[in-house]
């Protein structure tokens, strides 16, 4: 797991975001997307760092250690890793981290299933960049979101 950027406002005792700040962990193999999202989120007041997962099979453990405010979880993780099992693990072991499912293939069945399993939101990679950012911020603020194609 790589740690957030050095300007991250993290409480060292609790590793929770301090004040109104928030952190994001993006569980996805698309590093182009993660890098771009991190750059974009640095424009957002309160964003204090992006976590990355180095070993997808240990995603839940890495969430438990980092305790990010938001987990963006790609549905199609390589290597046969089951994203829904990761969701269940996060809900069980790190319930304070709010999971947003993220996929290029949104599915009504998948939306219903993952929202029932404890996800706070569902964002399609076909949504606009603004809706992706707004979706993250709304979940930080306690709302549920479903952002499909524009």
């Amino acid at each position, binding site marked *: 797991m790589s740690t957030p950027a050095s300007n991250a406002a993290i409480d060292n005792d609790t590793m929770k975001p301090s004040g109104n700040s928030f952190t994001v962990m993006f569980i996805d193999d698309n590093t182009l997307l993660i890098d771009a999202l991190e750059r*974009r989120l640095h424009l957002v007041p309160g964003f204090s760092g992006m976590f990355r997962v180095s070993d997808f099979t240990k995603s839940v453990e890495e969430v438990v250690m980092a305790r990010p405010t938001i987990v963006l979880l790609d549905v199609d993780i390589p290597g046969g890793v089951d994203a829904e099992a990761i969701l269940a693990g996060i809900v069980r072991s790190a319930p304070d981290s709010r999971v947003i499912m993220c996929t290029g293939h949104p599915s009504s069945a998948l939306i219903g299933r993952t929202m029932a399993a404890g996800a706070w939101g569902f964002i399609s990679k076909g949504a606009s960049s603004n809706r992706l950012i707004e979706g993250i911020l709304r979940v930080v603020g306690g709302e549920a979101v479903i952002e*499909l194609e524009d």
Partner: protein
Amino acid sequence: MTPGPDTQLAANANDAERHQHHVQRKEVLGTLASGMAHELRNIVMPVLLRLDVLSASAELPESARSDLTSIRKSMRHLQHLSEGLRLLSPDAAIQPAERPTTRLASWWADFRSVVVDTLPMHASVSADFPETLPLVAVPQSVLAQAVMSLILDALPAAATVSHPSLRLYVTEDDDVLRLSVEKNFRRFEQTPDSRAIGSPTRSHRDTSMRFGLYASRELLNQYGGDLIREVTDEHVQITITLRRVTPLGTHPAQRIRVLVEDQRVLAVVRLLMQQRGISAVEPNDLGPVDLIICDAGTLPLARHSISTSPGVDVVVLGSKPADGPELSEVRWLDVSDVGALFAAFG
């Protein structure tokens, strides 16, 4: 000399083989299109995010800002195109990936580019889908593949017409929408015959032929829709009938009381209502309501509303407790969790 029975059988077999080959080719193209759509999305979103970052720079000259706007517009076009391509996946029609409802205006926004690119350059394509049209009960991919099958089956004929034109428009009836596909080119040897709405489908084709018109009709039938052909001297008109969606809570006039403890579940319920333009009654509004959404923990709080709201529908997220109120005028809805609530809301 008339052909003998054996010759006729062989000809029929050849036709069937040719048709199957045709359909399989479309399926392969659909799979390729869907794969390309996935890759496009993985590329487009990072570009859009980087454009946001560049646009936020205060030192950017006006000309560069204008360039960025143009690039963003192109990227958004690519994103719509990728969504249109994704709808062509053969798997998408058999096991629809997206929600089982379609808003025609946004469906067309995604699918238009694919249709235009499929037809000859000089073809004219027009469509009229007002934003105000109600939701229809069919997945976007099933509708996309039905329309694409109509176009592909007649595509060779489009090249022989000086001004090929395709027009799509909708008329509304009580419980159905009729999507008319009107074109001035035709080639319908594989098209189902004209028949009355609601009459049984008489297809002897292999239903695994997902891209054929028979398969399209059967898929539409599964969602309460249909596909009918009418031929005049001037043009061929296909009418796709689509059932209106009438899910829970679609009437803005409905009064809904939400009594849910769990913060996340409450957020989800609010989202579902917000998406449908409905809002919950204020906590201090003690008047009768049409629908109560509660959970096992808040059921005692719901009792007052139940007793003052004859005929109220009650959604209990989680199973109804054995000692729950047994009131004859209450209709308990089978909504056990948030996933089922999604289905109930449509």
